[in-house]
């Protein structure tokens, strides 16, 4: 079976480039504001959108994503709003993944979540705290609705662990570039390239690298060895800064477009002068 993600990676490969995945949380600064920002980043060259489901205890996230998720939750964002966001952004044609901690899905009901996510036009999920050992019921529900299930590996993952994750993952394997939480880093871990090689030895699935990538130069560097480049905190920071400085929605969207365009140039091997 070929999913929308498979097609998207294949198309990027045809162009001889890596694919760009952009993350923003639903509901920040508002549900509609989040939708507008996600659409803007797709227009500017992001290939796949990761819609974050804001969660009260985001143990894998650094302060930038925590702040945005907290604000979204204070604003009253619900799982329903996340699905509405998926539906609105899927209209752009880009594959949409929901990045979520497990408890909100558990509470919603995994089968119901899979059905509603598919109905909203979503392409799949990324579930950082769902261990492969516990993923059976979710994988069955996701497969029934044609959703891809992306899982993470880290530099500390053993080869056995990588094989186990690769054996159940679909769409791509998310390789965390370093040991730590989300957030921009001056350098993307040197461990990332080695981890990508180890994943490739275990699977034919594409490998996308996330954690720490914030600039076009870093995107270009990672694109040199990975099939996909995932950027989150750097994009979220643009929205947070605009919010804090009271710049208004148009300026925030321009900021998102500018960064997304830089990153899109990066994954095409070019580093624009502005980077």
């Amino acid at each position, binding site marked *: 079976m070929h999913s929308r993600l498979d097609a998207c990676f294949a198309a990027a490969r045809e162009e001889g480039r890596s694919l760009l995945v952009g993350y923003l949380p639903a509901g920040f600064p508002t549900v509609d504001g989040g939708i507008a920002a996600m659409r803007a980043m797709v227009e500017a060259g992001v290939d796949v959108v990761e819609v974050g489901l804001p*969660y*009260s*205890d*985001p*143990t*894998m996230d*650094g*302060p930038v994503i*925590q702040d945005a998720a*907290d604000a979204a*939750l204070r604003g009253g964002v*619900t*799982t329903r709003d996340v699905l509405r966001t998926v539906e609105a952004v899927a209209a752009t044609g880009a594959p949409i993944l929901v990045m979520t901690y*497990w*408890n*909100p*899905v*558990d*509470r*919603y009901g995994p089968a119901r979540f899979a059905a509603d996510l598919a109905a909203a036009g979503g392409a799949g999920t990324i579930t950082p*705290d769902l*261990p492969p050992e516990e993923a059976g019921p979710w994988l069955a529900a996701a497969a029934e609705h044609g959703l891809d299930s992306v899982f993470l590996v*880290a530099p*500390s*993952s*053993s080869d056995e*662990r990588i094989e186990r994750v690769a054996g159940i993952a679909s769409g791509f394997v998310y390789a965390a570039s*370093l*040991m*730590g*939480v989300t957030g921009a880093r001056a350098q993307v871990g040197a461990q990332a390239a080695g981890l990508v090689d180890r994943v490739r030895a275990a699977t034919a699935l594409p490998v996308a690298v996330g954690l720490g990538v914030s600039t076009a130069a870093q995107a270009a560097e990672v694109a040199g060895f990975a099939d996909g480049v995932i950027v989150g905190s750097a994009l979220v920071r643009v929205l947070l800064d605009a919010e804090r400085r009271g710049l208004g929605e148009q300026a925030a969207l321009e900021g998102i477009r500018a960064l997304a365009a830089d990153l899109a140039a990066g994954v095409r091997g070019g580093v624009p002068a502005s980077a």
Partner: protein
Amino acid sequence: MAALDELTDSYDQARADEAFTAELDDLLSTYAGRPTPLTDARRLTERIGGARILLKREDLAHTGSHKINNVLGQCLLTRRMGKTRVIAETGAGQHGVATATACALLGLECVVYMGEEDTRRQALNVARMRMLGARVVPVTSGSRTLKDAINEALRDWVATVEETHYCIGSVMGPHPFPMMVRDFQRVIGVEARAQMLERTGRLPDAVVACVGGGSNAMGIFHPFIPDTGVALIGCEAGGDGVATGRHAAAIAGGSAGVLHGMRTYLLQDDDGQTQVSHSISAGLDYPGIGPEHSLLHETGRATYRVVDDTAAMEALALVARTEGILVAIESAHAFAGAFEVARELGPDATVLVNCSGRGDKDVDTAARWFGLLDADAPTRA
């Protein structure tokens, strides 16, 4: 996951190694003050007018609570794994103080994450940890209490796992923590069971303990689980009352979910967002509960009651005046529950209460509650 696999392997090897268990036993007796005594609470028994009440005196263990039992085990394990740095979360500060103590003893670097709200209400313990050489990091994210301190410790751990052990303070978190912490706390129940047989000639009719994450309860319950005639009763923190929504009773007022790497009962809303817990006791102010307690609840082997702030504080005052023991507010929840149980069972029965910690750290909170400070108006009459 790699870190948890490594920990599981190391712990499995350590507990099968006689040298490791001998060193831990030696520290427990020559350093931590074990075995802790069993006290016949005669005046309290008379005052309540029900079953004979006996107290397992974990408040007399070094650092003032049962927390030292677990921490000595985990810090020895840290050294065995070749790690040099220990991180911990703390609510009331008892686990943080115990961790700082064990790290000082074993020459390990120590960082304690504590919700900013808790650093205020347990300021004495913050100073104690710093005296012992630990770095205390006030956590300002989320609700600024225990659950957020755990989040921050987990974030530290993923970035530092090569040289750092995360010394979790209760029977919670991902495997192997609930099992390992229970094993290190079992010594409470093993001692108490033998002491009860020696003192009273039989097993108690009920064992009562307070439950936040639930390590003191799991420690005293576990050796009694095969003794089906012994009722095991956990006391959750009811805060302002379960009906108000301002409480920390995961079993009485929560539902099944996943938090901090465990499937258990927890306080959550319809979308699976963790709800903020409330209790006058910082040590019980946690929206989840150790998964083995959820199991004991579902199998019916243990039962769980709710004790609200007012009942706990009344128990604290009564125990102080009848027995001359100023207990921790956490432990006062167990006493309040035990008073009910003692009245229900009547004078022929015996009730064993886990007096899990001493109350020095809570004097400020208690003084404000009862209006004992000359400068303050009472918060409650």
